[in-house]
């Protein structure tokens, strides 16, 4: 795993460098890997400092979206009327382009963190809700028949059978959300902010500091991968019975 990752990254850097050797693009179009590394080397305290607001927004938004998404999936699965009334709205919220909505949210919620969190939540809400809801709908019929033969109450069937049986589906929704979360925060920062990695990119872009753009981009990528790994690992710990059957 580590070896493969190392080889992949190394080949990517090699490809990047060879493109520069062949086409001789100037640094303001495509900086060399070396230049980007130098930005990291010299200015890592700034990159780290600007990561903190972005990461805070990301983690908060992820937690809130997980709670909100799960709750709405439960409501959809348990109440028939909720399905008819709310599912169209859920679809609509997903059909709205978040990128276009972002300026409005910044206008309404201000330059601070809350607009970024709101944008990230809107991006994550649908994948979490729909994957959990799908799982809740697909309880193995044998379990339900067994429960019925035991004179089970509907709410206990939901709580003790349908919810646990749907947790692996919720987990895949959360994995998708973990990748979307930093993107949501950065999109919010692009539209208007006074700090964060998105703000850093915006500034660097305006000043044609493309090496800075790349450095910030890499920071976002690394954080995204780390967040995904953390979520993936804790889900595997929490749901040992949902291990992949394909090893």
């Amino acid at each position, binding site marked *: 795993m580590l070896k493969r990752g190392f080889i992949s990254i190394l080949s990517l850097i090699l490809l990047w460098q060879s493109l520069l050797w062949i086409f001789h693009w100037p640094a303001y179009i495509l900086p060399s890997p070396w230049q980007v590394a130098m930005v990291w080397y010299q200015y890592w305290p700034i990159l780290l400092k600007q990561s903190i607001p972005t990461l805070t927004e990301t983690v908060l938004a992820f937690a809130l979206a997980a709670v909100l998404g799960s709750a709405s999936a439960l409501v959809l699965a348990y109440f028939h009327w909720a399905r008819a009334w709310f599912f169209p709205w859920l679809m609509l919220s997903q059909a709205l382009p978040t990128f276009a909505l972002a300026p409005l949210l910044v206008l309404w919620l201000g330059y601070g963190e809350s607009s970024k969190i709101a944008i990230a939540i809107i991006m994550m809400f649908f994948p979490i809700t729909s994957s959990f809801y799908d799982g809740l709908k697909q309880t193995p019929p044998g379990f339900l028949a067994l429960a*019925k*033969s035991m004179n089970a*109450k509907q709410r*206990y069937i939901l709580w*003790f*059978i349908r919810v646990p049986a749907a947790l692996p589906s919720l987990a895949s929704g959360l994995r998708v959300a973990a990748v979307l979360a930093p993107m949501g925060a950065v999109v919010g920062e692009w539209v208007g902010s006074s700090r964060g990695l998105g703000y850093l990119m915006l500034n660097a872009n305006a000043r044609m500091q493309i090496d800075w753009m790349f450095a910030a981009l890499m920071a976002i990528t690394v954080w995204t991968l780390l967040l995904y790994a953390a979520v993936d690992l804790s889900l595997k710990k929490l749901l040992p019975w949902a291990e992949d059957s394909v090893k």
Partner: protein
Amino acid sequence: MNRLHSPNIEINSISLNYEGRFLFDKLSFRLAGGRFTCLLGPSGVGKSSLLQLVAGILSLGARQGNIQSEEGLSLAGRVAYMGQTDLLLPWLSVLDNVLLGERLRWGRRHARIETKEKALHYLERVGLIQHIKKKPAVLSQGMRQRVALARTLFEDKAIVLMDEPFSALDLVRKLELQALAVEVLKQRTVFWVTHDPLEALRIADVIMVLAGRPAKIIYQAEPEGLVPRELRDQAYWALEAELLEVLYRAGDPLAC
């Protein structure tokens, strides 16, 4: 187990129509109280559907007629069901799987002590007392069916409905579990669906064969001898020949 009142069950002229075809049309028969009735028949004839009708868990099809105990009461709340697969919840331990009914009826995550002792008692009877904390995934197929049997026993119902419970097991495990089931389910009204005539011969007080479309009971026998019958029993082999003949003639239900 004498405190259990295991009633006769009357199946009164039930019809089941599924997608425009009658699986059963005014089918009537009686299950003897406190005895093992095994139902045989070609696959696809509706054995499992019939069992699920009795269990009150069949969700498909339009139906008529009624199924009740001899006193004219509904069976609801007096039935325990064990399916073809063990239906163990993978996230629960062996003990919690046995206690499942308690959770689903009362919402208790932690059972009361006497309830737990009852579950432990049944787990001991099926020989799993050493494994109560394990998750189903680490158990063998045979052990999983034992857990399912303990869960069925824990429900402590006078009527027990078994849908090919041991069909996935190898022969030795199967013989073992049949003997165990006969012992622990003694004096309950047991309705046991199987595709295996040898299983029926080994454990049944009454054997019925369901065949045709719409399906009818075309054969009924009450083999002699104490259950579980031993394979070396003479009567066993004589009846086997007769039973196989019946099943052979019953043939493919789709051809009727």
